[in-house]
């Protein structure tokens, strides 16, 4: 028995997570049983049982993500560094545990499904939640390891899964169909170990005990002026092809999410569409401003511009072109399709795609801007707790 538990434990999350899950499950199950006993299994009780199913589905979703994030060396910097110092190759098993799905996963999922003690479509939905999260995390792991097009391909299929999520059989079929590709891509990604990771990747790694004072490994913090005037090429930003793929992907996911809403609820669909659009605009414009202007300030104050009658500083003001274009897109689309059709799934998705494309692709490129822009460099917005100012 102990051997069996150890065997299964290889793929399980930390003990406290399992304990927490069991505790919550028991609480919800007890609550459901109490309600059933006192009220009887009528229509109203279906909602209570549904709550339990959702809880278990969410737990499986998290477990699916954990199976990649917890075991893939990409997400664990110290593990990765240690692995780099060993003769490990992808032909050998990963020392901490497999990142591919194994028999133990089937056992864990079987136990979880048994906990639902039902024989309905819910089982398929819970399995789909696991498979969706697992493949989502796996796809994300492919990007920094250089398999970006495989990442986009999987994410496009996952968008289709969202589109048909009301039909669990179709969703499960899609997930099953794309799984071999995900499996092979993960293998290919591990074959390419050790990876040349992008410089921004450490920001997304799991924090570990060895990261001191909030710094992530590999992050250079040398203060002012070295961090901002260093003789190394700064981040290139995202390329044109990647920017296009990401914008199409986001539009596709937005369409899938909106079209998935029942057609008799048009108002919520339109409201959600508008909300998505506003959020995309805000996130895109704000993100762009922060990465371009946080420490690269305008060369002269607004008052100075007015007083000296120099309204434009082309070498600085070019940074406003992309945000202004992004703002203009929803207005142009609304004008072109008319207010009634604006915020319908297709129009919203197209607008989101265009906005994201502009934010990611319209110049100046980040490297050009930082090295040749007409700005003044100001270190004032950096995290002061990390530095002493002389």
């Amino acid at each position, binding site marked *: 028995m102990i051997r069996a538990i150890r065997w299964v434990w290889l793929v399980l999350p930390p003990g406290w997570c399992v304990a927490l899950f069991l505790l919550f499950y028991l609480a919800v199950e007890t609550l459901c049983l109490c309600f059933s006993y006192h009220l009887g299994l009528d229509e109203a009780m279906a909602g209570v049982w549904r709550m339990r199913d959702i809880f278990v589905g969410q737990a499986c979703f998290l477990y699916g993500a954990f199976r990649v994030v917890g075991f893939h060396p990409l997400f664990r910097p110290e593990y990765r560094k240690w692995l780099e110092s060993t003769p490990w190759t992808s032909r050998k098993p990963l020392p901490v545990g497999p990142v591919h799905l194994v028999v133990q996963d089937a056992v864990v999922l079987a136990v979880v499904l048994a906990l639902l003690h039902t024989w309905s479509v819910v089982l398929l939905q819970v399995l789909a939640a696991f498979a969706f999260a697992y493949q989502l995390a796996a796809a994300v792991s492919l990007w920094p390891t250089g398999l970006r097009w495989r990442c986009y391909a999987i994410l496009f299929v996952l968008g289709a899964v969202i589109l048909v999520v009301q039909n669990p059989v179709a969703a499960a079929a899609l997930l099953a169909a794309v799984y071999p590709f995900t499996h092979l891509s993960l293998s290919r990604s591990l074959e390419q170990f050790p990876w040349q990771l992008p410089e921004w990747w450490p920001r997304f790694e799991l924090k570990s005990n060895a990261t*001191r004072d909030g710094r992530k490994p590999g992050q250079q913090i040398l203060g002012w*002026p070295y961090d901002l005037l260093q*003789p190394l090429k700064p981040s290139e930003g995202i390329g044109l092809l990647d920017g296009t793929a990401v914008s199409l992907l986001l539009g596709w996911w937005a369409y899938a999410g909106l079209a998935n809403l029942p057609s008799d609820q048009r108002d919520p669909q339109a409201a959600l569409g508008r909300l998505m659009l506003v959020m995309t605009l805000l996130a895109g414009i704000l993100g762009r401003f922060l990465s371009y202007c946080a420490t690269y300030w305008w060369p002269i104050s607004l008052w100075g511009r007015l007083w*000296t009658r120099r309204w434009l500083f082309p070498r600085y003001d070019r940074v406003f072109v992309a945000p202004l274009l992004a703002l203009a897109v929803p207005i142009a689309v609304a004008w072109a399709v008319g207010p009634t059709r604006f915020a319908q799934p297709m129009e919203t998705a197209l607008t989101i795609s265009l906005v994201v494309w502009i934010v990611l692709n319209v110049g100046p490129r980040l490297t050009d801007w930082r090295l*040749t822009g007409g700005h*003044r*460099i100001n270190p004032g917005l950096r995290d002061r707790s990390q530095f002493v100012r002389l």
Partner: protein
Amino acid sequence: MIHVIDVVQHYGVRPVLRQINLEIRSGELVVILGANGMGKTTLLAVLAGVLDPQEGCVEIDGLRRRSSVENELAIRRRVVYLPDHPWLPSNRTGREFLLGVGRLYDIPDRRLLDHVERLLTLFDLAREADWPIRSYSNGQQKKIAICSALVTEAPVLLLDEPFSGGLDPAGILALKRLLRRRIQESGATVVMTAPVPEMVEELADRIAVLSDGRVLAYDTADGLRRHTNSSGPLAEVLERLVHSQTLEKLDDYFRGDSP
């Protein structure tokens, strides 16, 4: 060779630098002198590429600042800038900091380790080398900041008031001698600012005197003496060039005080 060509810099309405033209030859130590608020730090920031002047430009070894990605990176590899108030990483040790900066400038590891050791010894920081920088005194922080500029081995050093900020006499002496040797042996170019002339007279090859955003004079110490018909120390020369109004104001002040 550094060329400053017709540089005009505003932050707001008032121009801080007005039509500045300077030529700094390779292997020269130039001191920018001037009273507070006259534009010394701004001029150095323009040379360092921190500011993009509204008019004019800066060329370093024939490459124009911010003209292209390649030019700017090539300039950055040759130039190190130490502002008056650098931000030092508080949790790193002095040694880690110097090694990090050296690696940024691609100094080979063996040479870097040796250079760091020699710098720490020269500036009396050997004992504190493995302490976090936050535990350093002001003077020690100034020293480690200076060491960081020196460890880059960049041929052009732009130093904003390197002798201020609590540097002790031993540190001042070490820095003066070290800069002189760097200029003599490797042909380094040094541009530094200073608010007072006493510290730099023996050091400077040429002195640029800044007042109200303009270059009042740019010459050797002897040239400035000739220019002002003065034979006294540099302080007296500066008094005649820049502070003549101060003397008049003093006269006015005491005249007003008399019964």
